């Protein structure tokens, strides 16, 4: 785990890119219990005006959170985590899927060895799919 003393406002967390493929959505449906048809049925998703099957917002949130939990090692150190879902993540039926890139930066140092990490999440290099994404973690 990074030490509070060594972290500064502006410290960047290691960025990660996560593939988001149809198989991931099917697994997430089963694990979360969220079987909303727009996450697995392209015909229905398109009929209600979506560009394609879209990822669960909570799946995107979970992937983005990994940048923070991988940085601290112990996910139990994550005290608060919040996001706004600004744009859906369409997931094409191909072998590549969407590519979700997540970056994190320390925005503030708080008392009690806590820091605020701001996160950005974009798909395929440009479109931001989360806004106001922030986590509070307790460092050693």
């Amino acid at each position, binding site marked *: 785990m990074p030490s509070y003393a060594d972290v500064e406002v502006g410290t960047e967390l290691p960025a990660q890119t*996560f593939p988001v493929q149809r198989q*991931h959505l099917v*697994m*997430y449906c*089963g*694990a*979360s*219990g*969220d079987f909303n048809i727009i996450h697995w049925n392209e015909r229905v998703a398109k009929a*209600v005006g979506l560009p394609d099957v879209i990822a669960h*917002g*909570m*799946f995107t*949130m*979970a*992937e983005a*959170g*990994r940048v923070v*939990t*991988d940085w601290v090692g*112990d*996910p*139990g150190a*994550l*005290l*608060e*985590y*919040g*996001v*706004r*879902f600004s744009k*859906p993540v369409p997931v094409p039926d191909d072998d590549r899927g969407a590519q979700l890139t997540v970056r994190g930066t320390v925005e503030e140092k708080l008392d009690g060895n806590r820091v605020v990490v701001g996160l950005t999440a974009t798909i395929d290099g440009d479109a931001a799919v989360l806004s*106001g994404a922030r986590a509070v973690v307790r460092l050693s």
Partner: protein
Amino acid sequence: MPLNRAFVGREYPAPDTYEVGREHLRQFADAIGDQNPLYHDPAAARAAGHPDVIAPPTFLTVLGFRFGMSSPIVDPDLGLNYALVVHGEQRFEHHRPVRAGDVLTSVSRVADIRNAGRNELMTMVTEVTADDERVATLTSTLVSRGTAQQEA
């Protein structure tokens, strides 16, 4: 049709407790592709000071689906058309990590319903406890697209 504002302040206790099991935590972690040993290996979790494997930070979203049928969202009097709903915001406050073996009790409250342009925003706050110990507070905002009452 606008949402029924009389729902603001109403509380919805989950009809049953929720038992957190190791295998479900592993399955959830696998579904998000996360091999952090603290989600999978009780010995690793104990070495890090936890009594058992812990849950990924967004795991408690499962409560909403487990107890969905007792949520105000499915009450016809609320007037919510689920086809018009998108998830707007989600926030977790973890008072302590969720772990295998927890028997969770949860109560959801309709905290707010308000207009945002043509849309309505409905915010629910869920308090999760285990044996009266506070575990987590979840705040989720749903967007009901295009249902706001427009001023004449």
